[in-house]
């Protein structure tokens, strides 16, 4: 079973993403701050990270950069999820190394599709 780490500080958003991914058969790890998320990524080396932008302690862009700079973690695909939809924000995310940027509110099916896609799983 593949592990997915969700780093998200809004409780309900975390719950929604968690529910939908568990439904699709993934094992879920959660973190609610930037630093906690980064530590979790380093120690558990998940198969994929879902990362919010606005987070306490350390923002999503920084967490993304750190994960992508670590030799042990840089292979982990990162999907960023945020209410921010300005082109600058999206560009910052991709510059930080994000594999995909999805704006909130997001379509649940689309999220699952992206996750599968980045895990290299077959899709019909």
């Amino acid at each position: 079973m593949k592990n997915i780490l969700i780093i998200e500080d809004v409780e309900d958003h975390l719950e929604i993403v968690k529910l939908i991914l568990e439904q699709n058969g993934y094992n879920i790890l959660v973190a609610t701050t930037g630093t906690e998320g980064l530590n979790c990524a380093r120690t558990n080396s998940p198969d994929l990270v879902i990362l919010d932008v606005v987070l306490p302690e350390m923002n999503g862009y920084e967490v993304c950069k750190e994960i992508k700079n670590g030799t042990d973690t840089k292979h982990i695909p990162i999907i960023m999820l945020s209410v921010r939809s300005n082109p600058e924000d999206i560009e910052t995310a991709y510059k930080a190394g994000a594999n995909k940027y999805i704006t909130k509110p997001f379509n649940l099916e689309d999220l699952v599709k992206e996750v599968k896609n980045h895990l290299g799983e077959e899709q019909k």
Partner: protein
Amino acid sequence: MRTNGENCYLVKKTGLRPFKRCMYCDKNVQDCFGFQFFVVVMGIIGLLLVMFTIRDLPILAIEITIIILLMLSFLGYIASKETNEIVLTNHLLKELNFELEKRVSQRTKELKLVNFDLQKALRIKSDFLRNMSHELKTPLTTVLGYISILSEKQAGDLNEKQIKMLESMKKNGNDLLHLINQLLDLSKSEAGSLGIEEKEYDLNKTISEATVNIEYMASKKNISLLVQSDERISSIFADHERIKQILVNLLSNAVKFSDNNSDVIISTKDEKDHILVSVKDSGIGIDRGDLKYIFEPFKQLAPEISAKYGGTGIGLSIVKSLVEAYGGKISVDSHTGKGSVFSFTIPKKKV
């Protein structure tokens, strides 16, 4: 009296009282002097005429000389008075001019400051709208997320009634999201930062992508969306996301303000230095006098129709900003009760 009245008016308008008053006062004094001298001279001439008849010639010669001298000096006086007046007036005009220039430059400075403040206010408003839109999206993500989970029965079975309610919640939630996105676009367009990303793309593809968004609404009213494209146009260099957004807005209006069972026609035309794209409907049309308002944000001429099919009155203002952002032009031709044609241009650019 009338000049006085005018004078007062001028004073109010320009605040130049001291100069004006001075000039008028002088003129009066001069008139007065002239009249007095005229009386005196006439008197002397009269006296001389009397003397001329009763005295000898030599004395008359002396007297005539004196009179001529007197008259000459009087003329000299008048002349110098007038020169003085001209010099004075000239001087006053120069001062007036200087004063005016000073005032103009001061007012220009003031206006520049006001303009700066206005732009700052506009920026603050745009920032506010943008931040607000983002703040609104956070709770909306929760609402829409749980609605999806519930309606997919991932939290248990549902009865017919509950399914219907959830559907309505989903639709309204999505309408709200659409509104927030439009507000965001509006704030961006006001801040002049609608990102334009141009690339080579098939215009017909852009059109069919736009119609997909409207098909559901059109099918409900049994309205056919027809495309008449100019064969000479294939791929063009432009921001296709933005063009799609423009088309979706125009098409949704066309369908919204048309009767059931009608046609909406999208046509393209190659016109030398630009491409013309038109959306034509045979709906309710727009009064000639109202045409100038429709591109203003939040302007709705038929609020009941807009409310029935959803609308905020900012669609066209966004369309206008979008078109102008890439250097195009938008125009509208409409007749009440007959229908409307909205057209916009896409300038041809070399890749």
